[in-house]
């Protein structure tokens, strides 16, 4: 028993040991204090200000901060969209890949600008190296930085007294990229390359197959064929197949993967360099790279909880919010791990197949890699859906019904169990405001949070922030469910087919980006509708959070009295979890009953 749990505990321990000091470092950077890297990076930061004409001292109010965020994202959107459409004519394309369709380019652009990284395409066959590096990698950096910047605007909202200013978006963005994301990812990317993740600008390789395979004249695989290696003739049951040819080489994709993989993990972006994401052996070759990549998923989101505590000068508050998230995460890992380790009766074949954990990982290995096993795959699945990362190292479509349901639920809760970098925490703070309001109603006091009175204006925006995800998911999947052509995109039948579609919209609405990947999402309707859901679920909460920040900044601080509801004790943690689950469970229970729950009960009947 202990032996089974031990790796899970180690994964969590590594995460916490790294996240706590990083949290302190981020606080220093964002408050303009000196760090051990400032002598090196300070000049770079100032050089960027000089180059782009940013005045460091300028302060922005709510309107200007919001306009800057939206305009900056808009410019990124136009650039990435055009880059994809023109990639066929641009250099950095040794495979000679043409341009994607306009609707796929729209979807991919919306996906990367919103920090979602939903992928309706397969990287190795659809995008050139130039698009990956100049388009996607850049958005991975700046969309992550935008999320963290908005969080700091909110923090200033709590800290300021009777002020209008929320800081300077350009300064926030630059500090995050230069002092936090770049050094972290430079180290990580080189370590990943050392572990075996490819990093080059060469065209794809091809290598000799030990056992060639035969294909028909139409290019389809011939099963049961016998190949005569001397004459290169193909026979099936003794008769020669006319026009058949032999495939003797395997495709080995190349490209600048490690640099993009590092930032897609640390920036909670999640978009794989290759189609199968971090399950691909050239994107995540061994247990060492897996540990690095997996820890990177939650590193910054966890660190930001501690940053928050330090930044609002109330470490207990940061810890309380961390605990609420951490407890949910641990429960989720447990549920997924137990379900995956148990496997299914369909796989066990009455004991003919060995599912035990002796000499092997055992359990449900469909869609999982041997080098990661159940522990490495289950923990990753929980991390990636708790954070709105969306990278995968195992195929969630092939998870057991209950294991797959937990990953879906983590996204449907609004991506606040740590969530995306910055956006997870500001989402959770909106839930905290909701919680103090409801708790305030129960005890008959004016709700307040961190010394700021919570009034109807903040409440309205908080509700919008909290409900943006559920509304986007339910409206999106509801409409998709009545569009007949969507049924053709499903890879599995019955309840699991419904789950594939529900998962797609949950992933888009949570800005997560993972998928039940059998679902063929590259159609005009799905590309457009999923794209719109992603944009809505990203930018409405950003506007709401900044509106709350702008309003809070103008209020005075109220002194803590004996009558103040504590927001740092166990009771508050419990209430916060309760509210998050209440909103999520009530919104999604009917849909989950039709999908994974129906499949589960059907499979054991």
């Amino acid at each position, binding site marked *: 028993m202990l032996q089974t749990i031990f790796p899970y505990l180690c994964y969590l321990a590594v995460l916490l040991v790294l996240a706590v000091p990083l949290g302190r470092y981020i606080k220093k950077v964002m408050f303009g204090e000196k760090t051990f890297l400032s002598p090196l990076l300070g000049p770079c930061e100032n050089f960027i200000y000089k180059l782009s004409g940013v005045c460091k001292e300028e302060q922005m109010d709510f309107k200007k901060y919001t306009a800057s965020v939206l305009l900056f994202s808009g410019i990124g959107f136009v650039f990435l969209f055009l880059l994809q459409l023109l990639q066929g004519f641009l250099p950095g394309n040794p495979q000679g890949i043409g341009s994607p369709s306009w609707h796929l380019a729209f979807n991919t652009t919306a996906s990367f600008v919103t920090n979602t990284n939903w992928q309706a395409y397969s990287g190795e066959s659809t995008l050139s190296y130039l698009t990956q590096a100049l388009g996607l990698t850049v958005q991975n950096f700046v969309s992550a930085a935008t999320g963290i910047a908005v969080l700091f605007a909110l923090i200033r909202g709590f800290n300021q007294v009777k002020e209008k200013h929320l800081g300077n978006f350009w300064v926030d963005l630059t500090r995050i990229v230069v002092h936090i994301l770049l050094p972290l990812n430079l180290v990580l990317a080189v370590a990943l390359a050392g572990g075996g993740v490819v990093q080059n600008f060469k065209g794809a390789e091809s290598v000799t197959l030990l056992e060639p395979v035969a294909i028909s004249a139409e290019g389809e695989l011939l099963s049961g064929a016998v190949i005569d290696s001397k004459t290169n003739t193909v026979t099936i049951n003794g008769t020669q197949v006319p026009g058949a040819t032999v495939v003797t080489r395997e495709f080995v994709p190349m490209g600048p993967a490690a640099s993009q993989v590092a930032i897609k993990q640390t920036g909670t972006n999640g978009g794989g360099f290759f189609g199968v994401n971090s399950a691909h052996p050239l994107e995540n070759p061994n247990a060492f790279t897996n540990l690095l990549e997996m820890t990177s998923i939650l590193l910054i989101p966890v660190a930001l909880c501690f940053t928050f505590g330090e930044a609002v000068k109330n470490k207990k508050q940061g810890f309380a919010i961390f605990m609420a998230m951490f407890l949910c995460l641990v429960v989720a890992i447990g549920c997924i791990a137990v379900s995956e380790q148990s496997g*299914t009766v369909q796989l066990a074949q009455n004991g003919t197949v060995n599912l035990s954990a002796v000499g092997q*990982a055992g359990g449900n290995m469909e869609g999982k890699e041997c080098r990661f096993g159940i522990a490495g795959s289950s923990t990753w699945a929980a991390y990636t859906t708790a954070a709105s990362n969306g990278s995968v190292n195992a195929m969630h479509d092939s998870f057991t019904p209950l294991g797959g349901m937990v990953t879906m639920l983590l996204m449907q809760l609004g991506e606040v169990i740590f969530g995306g970098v910055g956006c997870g925490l500001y989402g959770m703070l909106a839930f905290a405001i909701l919680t103090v309001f409801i708790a305030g109603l129960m005890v008959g006091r004016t709700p307040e949070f961190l010394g700021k009175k919570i009034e109807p204006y903040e409440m309205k925006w908080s509700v919008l922030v909290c409900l943006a995800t559920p509304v986007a998911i339910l409206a999106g999947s509801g409409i998709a469910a009545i569009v007949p052509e969507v049924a053709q995109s499903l890879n599995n039948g019955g309840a699991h087919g419904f789950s594939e579609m529900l998962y797609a919209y949950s992933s888009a609405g949570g800005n997560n980006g993972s998928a039940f990947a059998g679902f063929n999402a590259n159609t005009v309707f799905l590309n457009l509708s999923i794209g719109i859901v992603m944009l809505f679920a990203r930018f409405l909460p950003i506007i709401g959070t900044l509106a709350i920040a702008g309003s809070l900044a103008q209020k005075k601080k109220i002194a803590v009295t004996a009558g103040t509801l504590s927001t740092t004790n166990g009771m508050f943690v419990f209430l916060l979890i309760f509210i998050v689950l209440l909103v999520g469970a009530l919104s999604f229970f009917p849909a989950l009953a039709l999908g994974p729950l129906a499949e589960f009960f059907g499979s054991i009947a």
Partner: protein
Amino acid sequence: MKTMKNIFPRAALLFLAFTVLCGILYTGAVTGLAQLLFPHQANGSIIEVNGVKYGSALLGQQYTDDAHMWGRIMQLDVMTYRDENGEALLYAAPSNISPASEEYQALVAERTAKLRASNPQMADTPIPVDLVTSSGSGLDPHISPAAATYQIPRIAAATGRTEAEVAEIVSACSTGKFLGIFGEETVNVLRVNLMLDGILQPA
């Protein structure tokens, strides 16, 4: 509108600066360092013997010969990729099938029947799960020690080696857990087969 006009030049210039910094300088720096420090790993971990590229140690291939060790179940893709001469290249994809469906039950039954027929020596041993499942990438280069052990008698019989000799090759191609904790113990199937064919020598 006036604010927008003020903001636009800052936003555009800053975006340009980040595109150069994160898209070109960062990607270039990582590529340079990786190529300098880890040329083998950063170029696909390709196994080259006497000028022939015998696969990447990290990409699975399909083996059906009794004298070879078999890997994970693969969904081969021969339609998507071609080399510069237009010849079809082999690649593979995950199944994305639900492990709780009747369709899946039938598929696994077919796979177990095939394994049972090919490995009569192990008729009483339950089949290790990796051998009847496809992987997350579809290209998993590894199997578990249990799955390798299961095949040793068949390989020994087909190659004329003793079981001890085959077991020695398997252990030469095995990797333990990282720091003894993380990940799983694995056997690299391509390496085993290259040693069985005498192309690679056990170290």
